[in-house]
């Protein structure tokens, strides 16, 4: 159902002319443009040619609190602790030995497998990524488990439990509008 003329006028009045009305990412999606401001109605104004819209962000929606404050969080795959330490792994080419060097190569001294001298300048040693050590349960993994953490409600969500949405900026149509913070190309 489309907005009536009174509601339309009220919405238009609330739209700034010289800057973009941006969504409040910490609010539930129904009220992120303000109490009583429906995003669908704002798009109707755009369709009517009296307002403009631009995509500002593409954000993950928290399935628990309906806000858009999810960030990617690294966790231990075993105990879900975030207390992870990334330790560089090195490959000693001469003996195929693999060793950790948490304090750098020069602190290693010699290869634990073959006894050969090891230094940061040696071309016989190469970095082969990192191992993630959980400081809580001491589990090691080649990669941390990735989840979304909502900074609003502090719930963790699996990647496939979260949906992504385009979030728009709106303004009344007029020549004096400023540039949006983000360009539509990012949408």
């Amino acid at each position, binding site marked *: 159902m489309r907005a009536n003329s009174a509601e339309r006028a009220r919405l238009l009045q609330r739209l700034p002319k010289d800057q973009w009305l941006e969504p409040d990412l910490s609010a539930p999606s129904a009220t992120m443009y303000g109490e009583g401001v429906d995003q669908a109605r704002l798009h109707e104004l755009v369709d009517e040619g009296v307002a403009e819209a631009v995509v500002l962000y593409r954000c993950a929606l928290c399935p628990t609190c309906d806000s858009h404050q999810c960030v990617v969080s690294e966790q231990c795959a075993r105990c879900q602790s975030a207390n992870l330490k990334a330790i560089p*792994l090195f*490959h000693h*080419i*001469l*003996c*195929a*030995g*693999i060793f950790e060097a948490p304090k750098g190569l020069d602190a290693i001294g010699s290869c*634990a*497998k*073959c006894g050969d001298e090891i230094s940061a300048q040696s*071309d*016989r040693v*190469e970095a*082969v*990524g990192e*191992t993630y050590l959980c400081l809580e349960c001491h589990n*090691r*993994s*080649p*990669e941390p488990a990735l989840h979304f953490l909502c900074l609003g409600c502090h719930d963790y969500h699996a990647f496939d439990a979260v949906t992504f949405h385009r979030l728009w900026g709106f303004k009344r149509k007029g020549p004096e509008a400023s540039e949006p913070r983000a360009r539509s190309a990012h949408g």
Partner: protein
Amino acid sequence: MDSVVVVLAAFLGASPFATLATVFIFDVPRDLMALTSLGLSRLRRRSIKQDFVGNSNQRSQVTVVIASLNDAEGVIVSLASLRAQTTPPDRVIVFSDGSTDASPAVLSVLEARGDIDTLIINDRRVGRAAAGNIALQYVETDFVLLIDCDTRIDEKAIGALRSRLLDRPAAAACSGNIAVSNQKASLWTGLQQLEYMVAIDFGREFADTFGAVACCSGAMTMYRTSIFAGSGGFSSGSGEDLATTLRLRRAGHAVHFEADAWAYTSVPETLSGLIRQRLRWDRDAFRIQVLQFGQFTKQAPGESLSNTLQRYDYILFTFFPTLMMPLLIPILAGIPSAERPAFVAGGYLFLVMLAAVILAPVLIAYRGQVSFFQVLLLPLIPLYQGVLMKGVRLYAYLSEAIWHASANDGYLPARIRKRLNTKH
């Protein structure tokens, strides 16, 4: 019939030395040993309990590691066979070693599906040895099984290997039996299957009887994690399976072969592919056995009998017969030219007859499947093993001894090869 007798007489009557040298060069003594092993191994196996079915409620304490380079399809084949195990592994680790195709994406899907427990994607290729050693960082079980990514393993394989290592608490490793999965693809794959039957199913079991297994195959070997990881895992370079086995042996650890743990692997289907593979294998064997491990000399004052037997197995039945191959030239030159065709025909007929005597019981007693195709290939065995493969091995030895041909082997990434070749 008369002509058969004539050519046989031409060969056997030429000279006792020529007959003996030919027999030796064509691996007859080694194959006869394999035949002898039939009786010994079957007697021994009767006393071993053949129940490898695990209890699915208990952890098997086995982690499987598969290293893959641009071969997601091969990993899928291996994973399917892992799912069918009577003793399922506790964890499956797949290492994508510098894959440049779509396999990292495919493997990620397999991980999300739960077929892979730990996926390691390494953007820069490090080679099989280092890949295995990186994966070893994440193994927490008592045993770790390393298989090639195109290897399909029999449903009882993990149970059989684990059972053997549980029976032998001091053993560091146990390798499995290998059959050719594409044995009917070509003449060459059929011949390789016959070769594997003798050399692996019977040959390695015979060596295992004396604790003299020289190589725990890269296709499928289970290691005791504490010993394997404690010794630094795989050795560097190509031929890492052989070098690692010899290193473990030298450190005093026992290694075994379990004939009831089957792995099915695909082998080269063309002659050129087969020759390339064997040149690499034989160059590696020469470099590791002769140059690196100096198998001609006693390793220590108290060298174990099994290590001595392992050394002599290589020296007497692989190294010397290969070097003796050029002796065939003066032997043939010493035969009057008029008698030479009959001598060659008689010699070949004699070798075919010996091959039939040796391989007939092998075909009967083989634990895998035997096809009529393999029986038809019997007359080609002396030509294949004694001439073609031996010639390839001789060339590989000479090329390695003279110009270190393995230095250009693409099995390893170029930068690793370069560092290894300039280590001294």
